[in-house]
């Protein structure tokens, strides 16, 4: 799911591009493990003792960042150790764990869509809102089987040197080959792609869902010869660096890294597509109810701002805004001036339609 891919990507941000593929492959191996292959031979699998919380995320830089942002504060408060396992909580792996009654993770860093899908399948514990304070997160960021741990966006990034005097400022510009000649990049993973196409085609934000797929494909078709599809965040960055593309629909964390390395690369927050990542709890997790103390603690604004500064993942607790510098706000999707024109990507819609839509999209772009 694209949201997991973001988790993966956020984790990778400090690694070089060649590691990307390894992770992709590992993601694949993890999924294979989910199918019961080699599951018994996975080294480095954290196993939970009664006095610790095991959090599974996507590894890489996120191991240390999660420890600083969530683990250390929780240990200071409760005395409980937080162990971060970077295996990557692929939906397939969670499903296999629960099926085989061999659950080793307490909290997983997945997406809101995954939370709905896995929750419906009976693979998750409902979030215990008698322990977790729902009011700590912004509106729409808490659900039955998941609560938002961080936010991020897909944005329109561009190479200021190549787009001429007026910078592109909307998805409409993204599709305007006359005004902005050159190649673009979009993501192979469906979430946040067709929304941009439909916004460009004049659909009002409130009418985006359910997605009018045929209309989106019709609008996208003429652009296909000028599109390169990225698969991993590192690759999306590389396409800009190589001068392959003039514009792209990419994660804001990557756009931010690009801008840090060269101010010619920048992005517009206009019509950004907002995503919520989420903590979920696999059914029968080893630490039982204690995991909800951890989840509640992870909503502390200080820790969330730490994560924003380390990796660019935005806080889900609105109170974090008060702790931010202008520099922090400039990379935070939910800062009022950035969220003003943003569109919240619907986790519920994707929970119902993602599989089919993803396949349709892959088929369409590879014709």
């Amino acid at each position, binding site marked *: 799911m694209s949201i997991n891919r973001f988790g993966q990507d956020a984790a990778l941000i400090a690694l070089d591009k060649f590691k990307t*593929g390894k992770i992709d492959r590992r993601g694949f191996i993890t999924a294979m493990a989910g199918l019961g*292959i080699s599951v018994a031979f996975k080294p480095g699998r954290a196993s939970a003792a009664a006095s610790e919380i095991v959090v599974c995320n996507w590894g890489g830089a996120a191991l240390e960042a999660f420890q600083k942002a969530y683990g250390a504060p929780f240990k200071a408060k409760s005395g409980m150790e937080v162990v971060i396992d970077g295996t990557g909580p692929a939906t*397939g792996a969670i499903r296999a764990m629960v099926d085989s009654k061999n659950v080793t993770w307490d909290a997983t860093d997945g997406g809101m869509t995954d939370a709905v899908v896995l929750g419906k399948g009976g693979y998750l514990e409902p979030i215990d809102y008698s322990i977790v304070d729902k009011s700590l997160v912004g509106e729409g960021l808490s659900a039955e089987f998941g609560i938002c741990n961080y936010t991020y966006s897909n944005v329109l990034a561009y190479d200021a040197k190549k787009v001429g005097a007026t910078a592109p400022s909307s998805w409409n510009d993204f599709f305007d080959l006359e005004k902005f000649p050159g*190649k673009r990049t979009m993501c192979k993973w469906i979430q946040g792609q067709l929304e941009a196409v439909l916004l460009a085609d004049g659909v009002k934000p409130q009418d985006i869902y359910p997605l009018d797929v045929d209309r989106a494909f019709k609008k996208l078709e003429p652009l296909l010869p000028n599109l*390169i599809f990225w698969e991993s965040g590192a690759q999306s960055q590389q396409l800009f660096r190589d001068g392959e593309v003039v514009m792209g629909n990419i994660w804001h964390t990557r756009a931010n890294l690009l801008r840090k390395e060269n101010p010619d690369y920048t992005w517009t927050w206009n019509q950004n597509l907002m995503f919520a990542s989420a903590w979920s709890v696999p059914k029968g997790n080893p630490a039982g109810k204690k995991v909800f103390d951890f989840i509640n603690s992870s909503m502390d604004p200080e820790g969330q701002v730490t994560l924003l500064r380390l990796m660019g993942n935005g806080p889900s607790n609105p109170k974090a805004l008060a702790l931010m510098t202008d520099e922090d706000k400039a990379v935070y999707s939910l800062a009022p001036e950035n969220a003003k024109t943003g569109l919240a990507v619907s986790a519920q819609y994707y929970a119902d339609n993602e599989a089919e839509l993803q396949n349709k999209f892959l088929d369409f772009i*590879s014709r």
Partner: protein
Amino acid sequence: MTSFQRWAFCLTVPAALLTLCLYVLPILQVLALSFTEPTFGIGNYVALFQNAAIGRVVRTTVFVSAVTTALTIVMSYAVAFALVHMPPAQRRVALFMVMVPFWISVLVRAFAWITILRRNGVLNSALVGSGAVGEPLELVYNQFGVIVGMVHYMMPFAIMLLYANLSEIDHRIIQAARSLGARPVTIFFRVWVPLSMPGLAIASLFIVIFSLGFLVTPAILGAGRVLMVAEYISVQISSTLRWGVATALSTMLLLVVGALIALAMRSPALRAAFEGGRK
């Protein structure tokens, strides 16, 4: 069977057991999913044949694999033929050059090809700089780029297989042909080629089977525009959770590869290749 042969056969038992328990059984377990996910029956297999998108993925895979195999064989044969005719000192250097890509990860190689083939890459810069072309050519993020990457990946394998076969050919036969007045072209097509059939057959089979299962190279060099079976399966397993379709497609792939091997084994050339050289 003599007692020595029996004893020798027993030596294979541990490896066979290990393979059975750790490889064959889990694979069967996975393939069984194709009949049970999401409901019991052969629905997944019916879907495979009715789904136009899967049809397109299969066609792309077959086409790319066929072109890759043809190009790899022709170029590898040329290299292997040259290797056979080199003096030993040169040959050692040349063989080393053939082997180098073996030690480089498939990912690094794919990215290296992007560096060479992209719009502002090494090749396009040279072509535009020299005035050979006006506009940079579209060499990557399409089928062409995928085939380049795959051929490059497969060539060392094919060269080694063909070289092993060609170096076994008795040079006295060539001399005999020459003394009977055959011209070089005739010698090549009527002596070298027929004698290298076992090598050509086994190399082709090897490349086709490998190509059908390529994952990383098409994903990186195709950038979404070239969707092949392995990537399709991987997406169904890790993203869309359509394990039934994924495992059904994997089963079909396994059957096709099995059938290819079975067919190939009926040809005398391949049997000769598998049974080793001169007895």
